[in-house]
């Protein structure tokens, strides 16, 4: 009798879990993204247990920086529908970072950002100038609380702190989501506010000032505010999508304090450098459309498209496609990913300043991230389900590898003396990530 009662209770709990999972299917809306906790098996009595998602990523750029990034995410879904989510991320970066100066036929000597003579470095002729002493550690913590207001409304609030030795950031956000059309449609709206404090090594350079004068001031700040309007729609039993419109606006010191721009004469000789000078405001707008389609019991695919533009003149298009194929009774899956990205250059981007040329804008930056390029990412993930820990139904171990390549699309006409040098070396990077969740 007791056994039958337990069996019935387990079945009821299992049914309840399935219904909850089904009702949560729409929680992929922007407001709910990241807040939905994975549910522990109800029949284990661990519905309120924390679920853990962790990863260790290694990132390596060809000849430049490398990074190690451990991440841990813990989540808890309460019986009343509330969800808590906490995340801790640590980054450790070392290596060589481009300082923005142009490759030259002569050796170039640079001071370190701190001005310490022991950290001065010299770049050989024909080589891209990089600061070989780049080193940075970052720790970030984030928390999100999702709270059902009614059967069809959900409020979500979050906060994020990020700390580096020369940068500190606080972000807060709040979103509200409303389900209707039998929970086939979810509308969401969210706002965010970001406060950043910059304490660059050696001080923040005066924008556009002569590098040789080493004009630096104290710490700087920038603030951003953003809004996101999203709709998630179930189209058929096998297809759902989300569409987001977002806008954000940043104000303050938007320069990279460690980037300089070469000044060259008509013969191609470097005659000096300037600290970069970007506008102190930037507004970005984006449209994002992501789809999920099940192609059978074992295969599903996702396609995401994004269009973005800002008032610096950057326009970008992004398309990302992945396919997930499960096998071995759904205990394993492989997931190939392909991403294509293209951006135009900011209006003030220039790989160098020609000293003989009249400048028609007070702004300039040679940061290649503001140039025109396209990038391709090829990725592959393998995951294996394993027995669960602590009474949980299962755990998952995964390995992910990505290759990322950037190629410049527009090249400025250069003096004849510089032709033959690789002025636009692009970027090649590899990411390897091991993941474990339970």
């Amino acid at each position, binding site marked *: 009798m007791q056994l039958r009662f337990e069996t019935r209770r387990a079945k009821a709990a299992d049914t309840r879990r399935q*219904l909850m999972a*089904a*009702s949560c*299917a729409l*929680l992929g809306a922007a407001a709910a*993204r*990241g807040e*939905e906790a994975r549910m522990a098996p109800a029949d284990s009595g661990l519905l309120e247990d924390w679920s853990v998602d962790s*990863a260790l990523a290694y990132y390596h750029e060809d000849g430049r920086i490398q990074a190690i*990034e451990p991440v841990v*995410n813990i989540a808890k879904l309460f019986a009343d529908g509330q969800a808590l989510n906490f*995340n801790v*991320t640590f*980054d450790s970066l070392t290596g060589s970072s481009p300082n923005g100066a142009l490759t030259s036929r002569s050796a170039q000597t640079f001071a370190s950002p701190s001005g310490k003579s022991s950290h001065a470095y010299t770049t050989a002729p024909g080589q891209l100038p990089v600061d070989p002493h780049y080193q*940075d550690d*970052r720790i*970030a913590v984030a928390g999100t609380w999702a709270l059902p207001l009614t059967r069809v409304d959900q409020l979500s609030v979050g906060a*994020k*702190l*990020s700390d*580096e030795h020369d940068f500190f*950031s606080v*972000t807060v956000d709040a979103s509200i989501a409303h389900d209707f*059309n*039998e929970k*086939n*449609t979810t509308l969401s709206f969210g706002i*965010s506010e*970001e406060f*950043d404090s910059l304490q660059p090594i050696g001080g923040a350079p005066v924008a556009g000032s002569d590098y040789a004068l080493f004009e630096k001031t104290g710490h700087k700040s920038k603030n951003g505010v*953003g809004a*996101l309007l999203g709709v*998630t*729609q*179930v*189209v*058929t*039993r*096998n297809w759902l999508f989300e569409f987001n*419109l*977002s806008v*954000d606006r940043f104000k303050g010191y938007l320069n990279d304090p460690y980037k300089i721009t070469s000044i060259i004469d008509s013969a191609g000789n470097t005659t000096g450098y300037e600290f970069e000078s970007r506008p102190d405001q930037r507004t970005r707008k*984006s*449209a*994002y459309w992501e789809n*999920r389609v099940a192609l059978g019991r074992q295969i*599903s695919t996702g396609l995401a498209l*994004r*269009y973005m*533009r*800002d008032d610096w003149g950057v326009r*970008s298009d*992004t398309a990302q496609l992945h396919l*997930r194929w*499960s096998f071995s009774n759904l205990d394993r899956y492989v997931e190939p990913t392909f991403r294509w*990205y293209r*951006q135009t250059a900011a209006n003030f981007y220039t790989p160098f300043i020609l000293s003989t040329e009249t400048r028609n804008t007070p702004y300039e930056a040679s940061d290649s991230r503001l140039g025109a390029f396209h*990038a391709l990412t090829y990725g592959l993930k393998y995951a294996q389900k394993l027995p669960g820990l602590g009474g949980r139904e299962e755990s998952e171990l995964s390995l992910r590898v990505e290759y*990322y390549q950037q190629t410049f699309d527009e090249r400025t006409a250069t003096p004849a003396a510089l032709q033959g040098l690789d002025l636009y070396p692009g970027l090649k990077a590899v*990411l390897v990530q091991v993941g474990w969740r339970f």
Partner: protein
Amino acid sequence: MTFKQVSILCLLSITAISSGCASMGVKPWQRDVLAREDMRFDANPLDAAIDDHMYFSKEASSGGRSFAGGGCGCN
């Protein structure tokens, strides 16, 4: 095509889809496939976060899926 045109086009498409197909969607008992883990937009949140951080530090665009920014001094 400008951002405004793209947005209007997308919104019109969404509106047309949503209003033109009032029957769009499924009944509660037809959510078996949609409830699958691989059908969730945040099926792999750490993968997405690590990728976003990489792209944020190497490209001029970020966000779209959620709020932009990155709380990182790398860009």
